[in-house]
């Protein structure tokens, strides 16, 4: 038995779902091939920031792409919300990156100065302690200051994930569960995806399988050198609102839970919880907001980021198998807006915009030093 589609997206996480929703409609036959419930799923483990500040050092095009997505988020959230009846809870009150010492603040300022010299298309301000405290009254005595970016915001990432899938179905796309792709063949301008539950054929394919892209990309003449990078998240009981801005490592959700996040660990494919990491994160959170010492942590989990060596996305169409695209990044939430509204139409049209060229994987093919 075989099934035929115009575009098959491999991977049903946030990246795949955003692209699939974006290309669905206009009579196109779209399918998303997903793994089962046990898939490594950053879409269900992430910190849910729509975040701009500090991103793009070393690649101005990434800074611009990120800022463009943050600018597109309000319309994207409104459109997806209206289409599905799901309120994504997107808010953009501006975000902080707190410094817990003068030295941290100086390092932060120096990094942002280097970024500023690249002329990033967004504004970041360094705030002293007094100004930070005026906007975040609950900070503790260790907070020396902060950087602040008005474009930064946050969202309910699980609702975003749900809404993209609901929107895909509304637009007539098919979601195929338990269809991990074993092999991909390209014959006669058509892609044949072998899964244990039958073959799927498609005119175009998008590799959006996260860490799975590393295995899949070479099957169609592409490369996706990505590795897992573990991050922990702690979440407290629901508390009455007292944090009205998201921070890089701490935010209060709309329901009231405080999420503490952003550890970065090289632990291979182990997504288990390490209480030593969690304890260090909690201690730092209490230095930032001493009142948090009173809060009960109700859940801790770890998830795996999909990281390239330089931390930037890979967007590329195969030269040897035209119609095969690879899309991978570690910012599936922030970039959901541009993935759905800018990248998806390019994929549907069969041609990535020339400015995506900097995101091709050949940047990793550095010749050996002489």
């Amino acid at each position, binding site marked *: 038995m075989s099934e035929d589609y115009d575009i098959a997206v491999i991977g049903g996480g946030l990246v795949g779902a955003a692209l699939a929703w974006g290309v669905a409609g206009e009579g196109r036959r779209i399918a998303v091939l997903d793994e089962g419930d046990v898939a490594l799923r950053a879409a269900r483990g992430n910190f849910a920031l729509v975040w701009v500040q500090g991103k793009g050092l070393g690649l101005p095009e990434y800074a611009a792409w990120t800022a463009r997505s943050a600018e597109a988020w309000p319309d994207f959230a409104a459109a997806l919300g209206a289409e599905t009846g799901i309120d994504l809870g997107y808010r953009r009150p501006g975000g902080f990156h707190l410094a817990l010492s003068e030295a941290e603040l100086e390092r932060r300022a120096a990094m942002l100065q280097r970024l500023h010299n690249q002329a990033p298309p967004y504004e970041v301000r360094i705030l002293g302690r007094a100004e930070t405290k005026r906007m975040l009254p*609950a900070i503790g005595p260790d907070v020396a200051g902060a950087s602040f970016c008005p474009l930064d915001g946050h969202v309910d990432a699980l609702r975003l994930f749900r809404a993209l899938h609901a929107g895909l179905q509304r637009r007539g796309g098919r979601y195929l569960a338990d269809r991990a792709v074993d092999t991909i063949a390209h014959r006669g301008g058509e892609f044949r995806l072998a899964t244990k539950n039958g073959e799927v054929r498609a005119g175009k394919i998008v590799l959006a399988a996260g860490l799975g892209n590393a295995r899949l990309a070479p099957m169609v003449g592409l490369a996706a050198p990505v590795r897992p990078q573990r991050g922990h998240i702690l979440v407290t*009981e*629901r*508390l*009455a*609102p*007292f944090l009205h801005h998201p921070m890089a490592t701490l935010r209060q959700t709309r*329901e*009231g839970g405080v999420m503490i996040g952003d550890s970065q660990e090289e632990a291979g494919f182990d997504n288990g919880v390490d209480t030593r990491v969690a304890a260090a994160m909690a201690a730092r959170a209490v230095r930032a907001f001493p*009142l*948090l010492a*009173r*809060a*009960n942590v*109700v859940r801790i989990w770890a998830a795996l980021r999909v990281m390239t060596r330089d931390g930037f996305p890979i967007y590329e169409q195969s030269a040897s198998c035209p119609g095969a695209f690879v899309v991978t990044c570690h910012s599936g939430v922030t970039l959901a807006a541009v993935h759905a509204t800018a990248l998806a139409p390019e994929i549907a049209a069969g041609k990535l915009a020339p400015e995506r060229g900097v995101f091709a994987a050949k940047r990793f093919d550095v010749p050996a030093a002489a």
Partner: protein
Amino acid sequence: MFRRLPDAAATLTVTVDGAPVAARAGESVAAALLAAGKLRFRDTPASGAARGPYCMMGVCFDCLVAIDGAGNRQACMVPVRDGMAIETQTGARKIER
């Protein structure tokens, strides 16, 4: 609704929302409130619906009350003490208490 088994445990007094309530040494805050006829321990932060003890074994987190000024304590897991000040809760806990 709930009736205590006959036993010889000493009687002590706690307050619930300021009113004195008799309790028995060795029982949990949740048991003492249920025996006193109190079913509504809190309103949820999400919908405002009433909540009371469900599992009585520390799993469901539905019996949350404030005890001696600290919010969101599991009433079923805390033994009563003489003079304990217990308060039912409305909405989300405030971080200050």
